[in-house]
């Protein structure tokens, strides 16, 4: 892996998004550099998930631009090529119900990246091992617990070798024990240098693992900085209120 320090991967400029009359994102600017672990925090309805979904082009922005290595992707007709490089992990796991664990991880490799079966299996197994789910490769999603599903979903995203992985509240649907197992996998990934954007309500994860924390409120980025700045010495009163300081 070649490491460019501070190499910019994604730049969001003046992003806005409305659903009908309701404006969810208002003029958001946001940069993701290589190796960044960015946690986006804020109350429900503040636009965190929408921002993440805009970055992955699940939502078409109402205004503004999204640059991927300097190229505007926001209004691309065909986002599939771009999406190969941007992984996503969902709150509700969204494993493919009609495939077993291994096939969940190899489907993209085989059908999108056109890899040979043996090669795809090998790569998928490597990542299943990393998340500790290789023993369950033959299981169907409905046979797994929530935490196991989420770990498989992380392996599925990793298998594609994306440049950045977006995590949309990956632990919100899990019980406390499972939250632990998923967060520890994510922590390992962060250590390995993976670029991650994590929308989360896990303040300890943001505090200990992220190198950058973004606080969103009412559709704008109110404050951003290092975990130390945000958690110990936030400037905005609203941030203080949210963190209960």
């Amino acid at each position, binding site marked *: 892996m070649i490491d460019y320090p501070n190499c910019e991967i994604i730049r969001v400029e003046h992003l806005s998004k409305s659903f009908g009359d309701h404006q969810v994102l208002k003029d958001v600017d946001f940069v993701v550099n290589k190796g960044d672990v960015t946690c986006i925090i804020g109350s429900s309805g503040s636009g965190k998930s929408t921002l993440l979904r805009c970055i992955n082009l699940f939502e078409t922005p109402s205004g503004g631009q999204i640059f991927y290595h300097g190229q505007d992707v926001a209004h691309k007709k065909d*986002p*599939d090529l771009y999406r190969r490089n941007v992984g*996503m992990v969902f709150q509700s796991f*969204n494993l*493919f119900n009609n495939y077993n664990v291994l096939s969940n991880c190899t489907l993209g490799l085989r*059908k999108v990246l056109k890899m040979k079966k043996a090669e795809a299996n090998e790569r998928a197994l490597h990542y299943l091992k990393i998340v500790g789910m290789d023993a*369950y490769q033959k299981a169907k999603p409905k046979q797994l617990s929530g935490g196991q599903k989420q770990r498989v979903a992380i392996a*599925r995203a990793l298998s594609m070798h994306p440049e950045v992985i977006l995590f949309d509240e990956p632990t919100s649907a899990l019980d406390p024990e499972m939250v632990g197992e998923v967060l*520890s996998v994510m922590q390992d990934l962060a250590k390995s240098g993976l670029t991650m954007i994590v929308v989360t309500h896990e303040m300890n994860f943001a505090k200990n693992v992220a190198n950058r924390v973004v606080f969103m409120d009412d559709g704008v980025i109110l404050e951003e900085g290092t975990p130390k700045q945000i958690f110990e010495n936030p400037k905005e009163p609203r941030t203080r209120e949210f963190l209960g300081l």
Partner: protein
Amino acid sequence: MFETIGIIIKDYYKWILEGVGYTMLVALIGTLVGLGIGILIGVFRTMPTPKNKFLKVLKKIADVILSAYVEVFRCTPMMVQAMVIFWGFALLNDGQTLNVTVSALIIVSINTGAYMAEIVRGGIISIDQGQFEAAHAIGMSHSKTMFYVVIPQALRNILPSVSNEFVINIKDTSVLNVIGFAELFFQAKTIVKINYETFATYLLVAAIYFVLTYSITLLLRFIERKMDGKKNYKVLGSQNMDAESYAIEMGGNKND
């Protein structure tokens, strides 16, 4: 009574078997082709609206034509459709009628297709939006998403409805006697004209229909269970890579 039925079977078993053969042939092929039509229409109608203006208009027009097809065939009896298609073809070809078996196959297929279109559409929209998103997130196009992720799940979900259509078709092919198609009911009518044993003949035919549909029902339920796969799975020996060795392998430790 049972003697009479015995005699009917002995004397006419060849005709009856021929009728059963034709009935099953048309019901099976009609259901499968109908399902094919249904999948095509269902997939087309659940396609995202194209951004291109011209394509958008084209899709609108196709949508209108397809819903006209679905509604016309769902809202008229198959017996009438059979007559209209069979004699309509003859009228357009100077009185030359289409082969009866071919007509029967066409009629049952397009009739079933109209019902299947709605069944498949229902099956597709019942699939959780998250399945689409997860597929898009790994870079799959809409068509790949449909083909590898959505349609297999939708087909599993609609299998009971498809089985239902098949059973209905086994029974409903009987209306094709109006165009002289030699299915089971038509054969019974012919037999009655010769032996005048009206009740015994039709009772026998009723029993045969029941055996056909009920055994097909059981078979399809068995297939459904097979499709769901095993309830258990094997946990293979795990050799987990622990977190630290992974971090070292990947060469990064930026947060330390």
